[in-house]
């Protein structure tokens, strides 16, 4: 069938029903259409496994980070609703009754992540506060009529329980013509009384502890609502507040001032606003990175360039965690798709098992890895020969190398965290405030060569005792928290340092006594010559002691200790043999797919066609074949 016509623009193609049943499994697409298809099935499975783990981990993180916010929100809702509950005759309460309790939720500009937050918020509220949770978006409510209609239809849906579903839905379709606040409040009365009579709702017990649960209305994007709709709704609903207990939640992307900018004083005075601030997206990113990449839990790692690309997209384009995770997913996919040895990118015991089953081709692939070649060149000649000819020996060696790589990572991250504790609070943050910045610098080049590192150490040499102590304490905790035995020695060293610093206190007192003694000595009566001499002596003594205070000696020791840690453990990943198995480094591919520049492509195509035509003839390693 042709897909061009002068009379229509949509062409539907439906294959025969029988044919359609045979759907191709996704793995097949993974296998086909490329030159290296070694272990592709296994690779795809590994990809899916790791991705699922990462995804659930990020969801868990998200929940954890939102927990605080949600708890305080729930508290606010319960508190503000209790006033309605009591129905007291108090004058203050009467006044308060005219005000709609409102939570202004400042969520930040990463609008795309908000959906997830609101979804989980709705869930939490429904489980804990009230079954009547409605969330509206500005694009659904161009005017008051639609607003009420959406509100009503969602409210009715909320109420629908399993047994009465059909009846309710019939009602909904009937009633769809028009709604008013009056009808809503009568509906509310009827529903609450009905539940009062019945009281069989054991499924959602918490809400039924009140006889009249509040109605929570979430406006997801408060800024994009039209002012008039919002004003009208607030005025009307404040009139009905005594019979229709409404609580508003505004989702605000910019700043809380926007409420007052949008609503005139007469309207905003009807609201009783409390402000809630969600966690900033940068901190969110830091935790995500911390839990996904700076850990040995997931074998997959990003190279410096890739990490730069992803964080740059995050920081300079959208602030969206969702997008960042998408980038991570893509890099994971690309890694497993393009690197045949990525089959070994799994947890250590499994990888060791898989090594035994590697085919000859895969062994050849290992030998071709640049990092492995470098490693081989360093070995003695007999071993070189063995590595290059004997498959068995190669496999054994690979196993030990992979294990080394694993150990390297455990140590690396521990030392990285330790170093971060020391450098994160230095003035001017020479190595960055966030651990991801430090990580990036460490991945980029040998950190001990960088100027920032030198200046950071310089600053460390000037710190006071209590600051150093605090850092050491944190460091100690880091080491304690990890169960690894590898760096147990280091933890002990840190503990020793701590003890030494503490014991300094006592010694300092003694020293003070010393100095006071010498001072009293200096006050003895002498002639001018002797006085001069003794003064000179004292000066010299002081200078010598200045250089040699116990604290300073200790501090120097500590700094050199940290330096030695960095030297020993913070090596570049490129120096490790077989790093290609775990590290994804095709930053260019990633940038092209995520952050494309159609303008530049057009420009190049028009100005310099040879870029496309000639390059393609000379060699096939075009940009899209990564590595």
């Amino acid at each position, binding site marked *: 069938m042709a*897909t061009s016509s002068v009379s229509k623009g949509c*062409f539907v193609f439906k294959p025969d029903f029988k044919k359609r049943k045979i759907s*191709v499994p996704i793995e097949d697409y993974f296998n086909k259409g490329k030159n290296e298809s070694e272990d592709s099935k296994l690779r795809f499975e590994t990809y899916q496994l790791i991705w699922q783990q990462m995804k659930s981990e990020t969801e868990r993180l998200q929940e954890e980070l939102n927990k605080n916010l949600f708890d305080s929100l729930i508290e606010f809702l319960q508190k503000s609703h209790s006033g309605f509950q009591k129905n007291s005759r108090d004058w203050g309460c009467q006044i308060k009754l005219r005000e709609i309790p409102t939570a202004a939720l400042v969520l930040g500009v990463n609008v795309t992540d908000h959906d997830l937050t609101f979804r989980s918020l709705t869930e939490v509220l429904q489980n804990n506060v009230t079954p009547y949770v409605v969330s509206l978006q500005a694009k659904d409510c161009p005017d008051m009529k639609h607003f009420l209609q959406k509100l009503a239809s969602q409210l009715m849906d909320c109420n629908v329980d399993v047994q009465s579903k059909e009846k309710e839905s019939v009602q909904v379709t009937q009633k769809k013509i028009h709604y008013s606040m009056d009808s809503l409040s009568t509906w509310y009365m009827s529903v609450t009384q009905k539940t009062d009579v019945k009281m069989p709702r054991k499924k959602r017990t918490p809400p039924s502890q009140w006889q009249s649960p509040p109605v929570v209305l979430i406006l997801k994007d408060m800024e994009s609502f039209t002012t008039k709709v919002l004003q009208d709704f607030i005025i009307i609903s404040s009139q009905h507040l005594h019979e229709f207990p409404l609580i508003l939640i505004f989702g605000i992307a910019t700043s809380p001032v926007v409420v007052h900018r949008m609503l005139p004083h007469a309207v905003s005075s009807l609201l009783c606003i409390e402000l809630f601030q969600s966690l900033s997206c940068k901190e969110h990113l830091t935790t995500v990175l911390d839990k996904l990449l700076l850990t040995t839990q997931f074998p997959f790692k990003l190279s410096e360039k890739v990490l730069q690309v992803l964080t740059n997209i995050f920081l300079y384009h959208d602030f969206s965690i969702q997008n960042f995770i998408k980038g991570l997913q893509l890099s994971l996919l690309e890694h497993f798709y393009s690197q045949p040895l990525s089959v070994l990118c799994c947890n250590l015991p499994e990888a060791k098992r898989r090594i035994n089953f590697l085919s000859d081709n895969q062994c050849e692939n290992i030998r071709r890895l640049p990092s492995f070649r470098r490693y081989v060149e360093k070995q003695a000649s007999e071993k070189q020969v063995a590595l290059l000819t004997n498959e068995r020996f190669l496999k054994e060696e690979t196993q030990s190398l992979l294990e080394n790589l694993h150990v390297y990572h455990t140590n690396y991250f521990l030392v990285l965290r330790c170093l971060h504790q020391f450098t994160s609070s230095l003035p001017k943050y020479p190595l960055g405030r966030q651990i991801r910045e430090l990580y990036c610098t460490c991945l980029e080049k040998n950190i001990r060569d960088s100027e920032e590192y030198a200046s950071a150490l310089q600053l460390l040499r000037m710190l006071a005792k209590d600051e150093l102590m605090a850092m050491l304490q944190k460091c100690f905790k880091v080491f304690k928290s990890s169960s690894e035995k590898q760096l147990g020695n280091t933890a002990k060293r840190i503990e020793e340092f701590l003890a030494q610093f503490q014991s300094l206190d006592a010694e300092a007192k003694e020293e003070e006594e010393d100095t006071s003694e010498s001072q009293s000595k200096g006050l003895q009566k002498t002639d001018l010559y002797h006085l001069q001499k003794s003064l000179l002596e004292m000066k010299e003594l002081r200078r010598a002691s200045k250089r040699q205070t116990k604290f300073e000696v200790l501090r120097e020791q500590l700094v050199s200790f940290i330096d030695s840690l960095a030297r020993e453990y913070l090596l570049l990943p490129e120096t490790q043999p077989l790093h290609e198995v775990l590290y994804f480094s095709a930053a260019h591919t990633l940038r092209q797919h995520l*952050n494309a520049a159609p303008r530049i*492509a057009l420009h190049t*195509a028009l100005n310099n066609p040879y870029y496309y035509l000639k390059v393609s003839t000379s060699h096939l390693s075009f940009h899209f074949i990564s590595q």
Partner: protein
Amino acid sequence: MMSKLESKEDKMLEVQFVGDDDVLNHILDREGGAKIKKERAQLLVNTKKIIKKPEYDLEEDDQEVLKDQNYVEVLGRHVQESLKNGSATDGGNKVYSFQNRKHPEKMAKLASELAKTPRKSVSSNLKSDPEITIDIPQCSKGHSASDKVQLKNNDKSEFLSTAPRGLRKRLIVPRFHSDSESEYSASNSEDDEGVAQECEENTNEVILSEQIQAQNRVVSAPVCKETPSKKMRRDKTSDLVEEYFEAHSSSKVLTSDRTLQKLKRAKLDQQTLHNLLSKVSPSFSAELKQLNQQYEQLFHKWMLQLHLGFNIVLYGLGSKRDLLERFRTTMLQDCIHVVINGFFPGISVKSILNSITEEVLNHMGTFRSVLDQLDWIINKFKEESSLELFLLIHNLDSQMLRGDKSQQIIGQLSSLRNIYLIASIDHLNAPLMWDHAKQSLYNWLWYETTTYSHYTEETSYENSLLVKQSGSLPLSSLTHVLRSLTPNARGIFRLLIKYQLDNQDNPYYIGLSFQDFYQQCREAFLVNSDLTLRAQLTEFRDHKLIRTKKNIW
């Protein structure tokens, strides 16, 4: 300016503190003096008295010219460089961008400088062309006086003989402005001739890029219309400022004003254009084929990524329709898929949704609104997880689909787990359609597919700029309708037409009111009641001969 200052200080061999303001005054004074001198010299030339110029004035000029030349040289090199290695990776600074024109005077100066080198090559290239032989005497005639000056100067001072041709040009340009103008137009026509000839010969040779550049520059230079004295005054004050901006201006790409209007060749009709185009054999076909094969290797990857929740958007020069069509025939034979031609002028979101509901989901009901329909589709796809649908959209950024609402709806469709979207975009600014929210709905993976193939199908609904717009089709339909009318009705129409033609130059003309028209028709004995007139007008309206507005009636 800086170099001058330095050289001066070198001579003095004495360092003393000079305030910024002083330096500025100093420079301005000196500059002013020089200009006045020049002005005088020009006056003298204008009266055709040949007088030896003051030596230092020449020096001054020489220096300036040299400086300009350096600048030009840099400019030329830069353009060439950017041509040589305009790879996709090197930043956006060389990419076409919005640019405001430089000062016209400066442009004229620059253009005259630029004109000198390539002109030689042009003339040598087109030696056989008779036009050029006409052109040359024209030039020499125009500048005969100045040539004399040059000759004299040649005898007397060695500055000019050693100076490059640019200097001579520079001396000429400000003096004979009217002449230079004619010269520009002459060169323009000459270039046009060349191009037209190339078109006619249908040679598919790649013209030397250098030559094109040169021509572009000549054409793009606007003609300076200010009198020299005015220019001088302006220069005095704005020179410094200009120099600053010149030094800091980064964009060296000049916009070409070589438009279709400049073609001497008259517009063709559809058939001849088609014939001419069909004669052109495609160049680089082997390379293009290879390029396409590379893209075809990606098909499996695309399928994989589509299944993993991404959607794919293709961008790059050239029609991507064939590529997508090949993708469709190779990969999608066993799946339900919908091909949507975004370039089709009658396409709308409504029709897309309709084809999904009616043909894919076999639903025969109607919907109250597009949003309802969308909700229904979304629910349907969420319920039946085994249902899978591929959407192929050619030109997602077309006129009809680029609206905010359409994009929102398509985005929501594509965000469904079992709807897979693969689309192509062509507009330079297409990504501006999507804000963050929409981008996250689409979840795009971008693929660059520069194919260099023709947009034949995409542009088939539009009129080519090269084709003559005859308007013969509406005219013929008009005559058909008119022929079937009664004499009275024809009279009514004629009245209306006449009124329209009488008022066609009136910018405030809003139309003829019904009452007035009725009156006129009555006076001409064409109708007897307003009902008949209304019936008649309705008939016209049905045939789209006229348009009516409610508020006037």
